[in-house]
């Protein structure tokens, strides 16, 4: 967190006294300038910013800033809870607003399951510091020691007396004090908010249609743009025939524009109209001739996987090695090797990509975009518009799902480009077809795995990860002999804690022009499949129960507790009738450990997924029900990724266009679910993603247990297994 812990600010907001309720921010004011403005203001309009996250008004009303956009994972409640616990205020009595990208809020990226664990200490310190400043003022007014004062429910009390001050009464003087650098934090045993069940306060607006998402933004004078991208994504325009488009009533203009991805730009054509419907109609009537170059041949998922399978026959770049794996493998008598495959996947959030940009005559801009991080959005918008960040006001509405997709700002770049051209507010809205066919996607990957067993124990494991790299493609930051840091962290023995006498992690970079990006749980979603299915294969080779085989090589207490709890809750030892099977998997990612057990049954034709039991150790957490909700969501998305067709490219184009071809799990395919949270009291780990990686391998292992069929390629067509 970058905000200066030592600064103090008077931050005055004035209300336009016309009574519209519009609040305008003014820069920092001091001394006489401050007095001259404030003397005519009603006292309740004086807001006192204790630190960037806490604003207390003299009328006692409190505003907390949420720095991390909410895409359903609950940050709108979770982050302010960290402030509220230490500040001793109830969430029902504060106003929560979303941060706008300014650097004073530090990192505002929602992603990497990092919001609670990244802000656990910084926001708690901010709340505790503010409380100490308020106590100091009260103590000095009572001419007593701060030890005799305590905070509760937005009030400072003097012990053994009936004296108290509300925060509003203290705020003006508190803001004059230096901010304590090391405020005392509460003992978790004394938490009244954190770790407790609380209703999410954003939910009522989501059941009445009042919640405002990126797609809902309306700005006076706004026009709409529907953009024709190249079907092969990277083709260049030869000609554009817009005659039919311009005849559509409401269409104002057809403009060539660019889709700016992080690593490259592609040609596109925008149809601008007074209504969205007219814009997309105009776009459907465009006749664009594209130069696809070689993309029809090179940009196919078949070509990509062929390269990957070839790489699986060779050695990769070594990332980690314990002992001489190859020598031990070659001399082992009981060994296996296999290749596991995962497909490309779309995020397909129900709300497609959208941004509204207004580039104004005075050279400033105002933006409304549902990005995962307004600081990143602000930085990119400044580049796209060619103006300084402090000239841009960036609003983040709610995200109607994202799972990684909305952190990729191509749709924002298009809105910025058009805003500069048109000089009026413009909304760029992607259709569902744009969302599915243009990516970016989770990359398909291969796990080439080798392992051996001896005397009933797993004695070696080599995980050779093969495929495209996010660091390589998106950030152009991968050195030739370097393993992508995002994936090597997932596969290392330090991460999985399996105690193999010899082990190896290696990697081969296979490139593709198909755009990729992080998808929920990133590479853990690919490599959980290979790792945990192959551990199962080795367990069976060793003649051991898959649970026992894992426990025999796991010493870490937290991992063992997760597995043992899963075994108990999922009744692992239960004797099952023929045709029924259970499979389990455990995977550590984003600072947490999660395991899943799936039960399947078959009557000869097709598999039914009966039940999924998940266990998660995420250390300290904010709201147990939200941990359950996120893990339920991960089970659903994990099963969807395992059994539904992925994204394929033929002749340079995406084969799937909408939800009828790119199918996602529905209610009738969702099994009975149970989620159990381990009360480890460890440092907080992630919650948004860790529940996903063990789901697919648990399913694969369950299918093996029920049918004896070992599957190594996703997706699994569960209707055809017999």
């Amino acid at each position: 967190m970058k905000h200066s812990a030592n600064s103090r600010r008077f931050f005055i907001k004035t209300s336009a006294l016309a009574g519209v309720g519009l609040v305008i921010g003014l820069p920092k004011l001091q001394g006489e300038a401050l007095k001259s403005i404030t003397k005519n203001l009603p006292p309740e309009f004086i807001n006192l910013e204790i630190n960037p996250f806490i604003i207390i008004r003299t009328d006692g009303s409190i505003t907390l800033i949420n720095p991390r956009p909410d895409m359903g994972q609950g940050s709108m409640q979770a982050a302010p809870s960290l402030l509220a616990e230490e500040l001793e205020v109830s969430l029902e009595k504060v106003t929560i607003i979303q941060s706008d990208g300014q650097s004073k809020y530090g990192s505002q990226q929602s992603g990497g399951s990092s919001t609670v664990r990244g802000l656990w200490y910084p926001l708690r310190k901010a709340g505790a510091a503010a409380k100490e400043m308020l106590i100091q003022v009260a103590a000095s007014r009572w001419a007593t020691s701060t030890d005799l004062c305590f905070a509760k429910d937005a009030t400072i009390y003097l012990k053994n007396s009936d004296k108290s001050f509300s925060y509003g009464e203290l705020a003006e003087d508190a803001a004059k004090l230096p901010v304590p650098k090391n405020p005392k934090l509460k003992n978790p045993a004394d938490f009244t908010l954190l770790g407790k069940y609380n209703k999410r306060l954003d939910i009522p607006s989501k059941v009445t249609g009042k919640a405002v998402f990126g797609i809902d933004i309306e700005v006076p004078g706004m026009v709409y743009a529907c953009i024709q991208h190249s079907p092969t994504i990277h083709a260049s325009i030869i000609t554009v025939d817009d005659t039919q488009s311009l005849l559509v009533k409401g269409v104002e203009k057809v403009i060539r524009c660019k889709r700016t991805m992080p690593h490259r730009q592609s040609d596109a054509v925008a149809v601008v109209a007074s209504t969205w419907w007219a814009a997309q109609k105009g776009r459907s009537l465009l006749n664009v001739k594209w130069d696809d170059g070689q993309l029809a041949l090179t940009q196919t998922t078949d070509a990509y996987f062929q390269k990957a399978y070839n790489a699986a026959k060779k050695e990769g770049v070594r990332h980690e090695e314990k002992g001489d794996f190859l020598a031990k493998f070659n001399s082992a008598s009981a060994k296996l090797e296999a290749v596991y495959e995962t497909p490309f996947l779309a995020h397909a959030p129900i709300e497609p990509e959208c941004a509204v940009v207004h580039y104004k005559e005075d050279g400033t801009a105002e933006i409304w975009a549902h990005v995962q991080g307004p600081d990143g959005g602000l930085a990119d918008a400044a580049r796209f518009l060619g103006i300084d960040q402090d000239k841009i006001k960036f609003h983040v509405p709610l995200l109607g799902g994202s799972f990684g997709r909305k952190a990729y700002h191509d749709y924002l770049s298009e809105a910025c480009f058009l805003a500069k051209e048109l000089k009026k507010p413009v909304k760029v809205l992607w259709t569902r077809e744009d969302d599915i066919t243009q990516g970016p996607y989770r990359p398909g990957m291969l796990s080439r795995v080798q392992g051996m067993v001896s005397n009933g124990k797993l004695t070696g494991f080599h995980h050779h990860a093969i495929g495209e790299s996010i660091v390589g493609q998106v950030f152009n930051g991968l050195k030739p002999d370097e393993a992508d840091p995002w994936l090597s962290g997932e596969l290392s023995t330090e991460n999985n804690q399996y105690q193999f006498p010899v082990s190896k992690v290696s990697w081969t970079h296979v490139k593709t022009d198909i755009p990729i990006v992080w998808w929920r749980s990133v590479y853990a979603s690919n490599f959980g499949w290979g790792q945990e299915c192959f551990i199962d294969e080795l367990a069976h080779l060793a003649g051991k129960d898959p649970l026992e085989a894992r426990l025999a090589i796991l010493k870490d207490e937290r991992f063992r507790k997760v597995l043992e709890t899963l075994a108990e809750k999922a009744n692992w030892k239960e004797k099952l009738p023929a045709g029924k099977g259970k499979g389990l998997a455990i995977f550590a990612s984003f600072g947490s450990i999660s395991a899943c057990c799936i039960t399947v049954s078959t009557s000869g034709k097709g598999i039914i997924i009966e039940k999924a039991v998940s266990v998660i150790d995420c250390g300290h957490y904010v709201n147990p029900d939200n941990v359950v909700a996120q893990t339920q969501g991960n089970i659903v998305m994990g099963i969807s990724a395992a059994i539904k067709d992925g994204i394929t490219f033929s002749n340079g184009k995406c084969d799937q266009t909408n939800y009828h071809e790119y199918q996602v799990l529905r209610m009738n395919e969702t099994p009975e679910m149970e989620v159990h949270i381990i009360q480890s009291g460890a440092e907080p780990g992630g919650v948004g993603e860790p529940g996903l990686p063990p789901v697919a391998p648990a399913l694969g292992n369950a299918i093996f247990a029920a049918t004896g069929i070992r599957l190594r390629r996703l997706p699994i067509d569960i209707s055809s297994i017999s």
Partner: protein
Amino acid sequence: MAAYQLQINGKKINAEAAADMPLLWVIRDIVGLKGTKYGCGIAQCGACTIHIDGSPVRSCQIPISTLSKKAKITTIEGIGEIELHAIQEAWIEEQVPQCGYCQSGQIMSAVALLKENPQPTDEEIVASMNGNLCRCGTYSRIHNGIKKAAIALKEGTTSPSNNK
């Protein structure tokens, strides 16, 4: 372009639109009611679900010119205006929404289900709700929410006007 008179949530509303503009976009962009959502445009996701004469329909599939003049349209804004519907109460009780984007459509489908079939079985719930996608994976809570609302309506622990 033509002028249409619509009945939305009990009010008469005039809207000027192209004949082929789907009701979804008339509701959102001409009338300005944003609660009904766009998700796919091909009736696969259910985010655009509204009621016409109390029955759930996909508003993305109804060109405005094909709408009957007598059609009574209900959107999410028309549900629970005075007192929250039992479904909405149950959604809060069960903490159903995560991102919340699909939930207007889910609620419209659920309200219509309970009106038609006040005590649905598990299978009937799934059959009725299966057309509504949720990418955040709230299906089990939706299912429980409907059961809870059905019980509340049966036991009269919610207002009788609630199951309109």
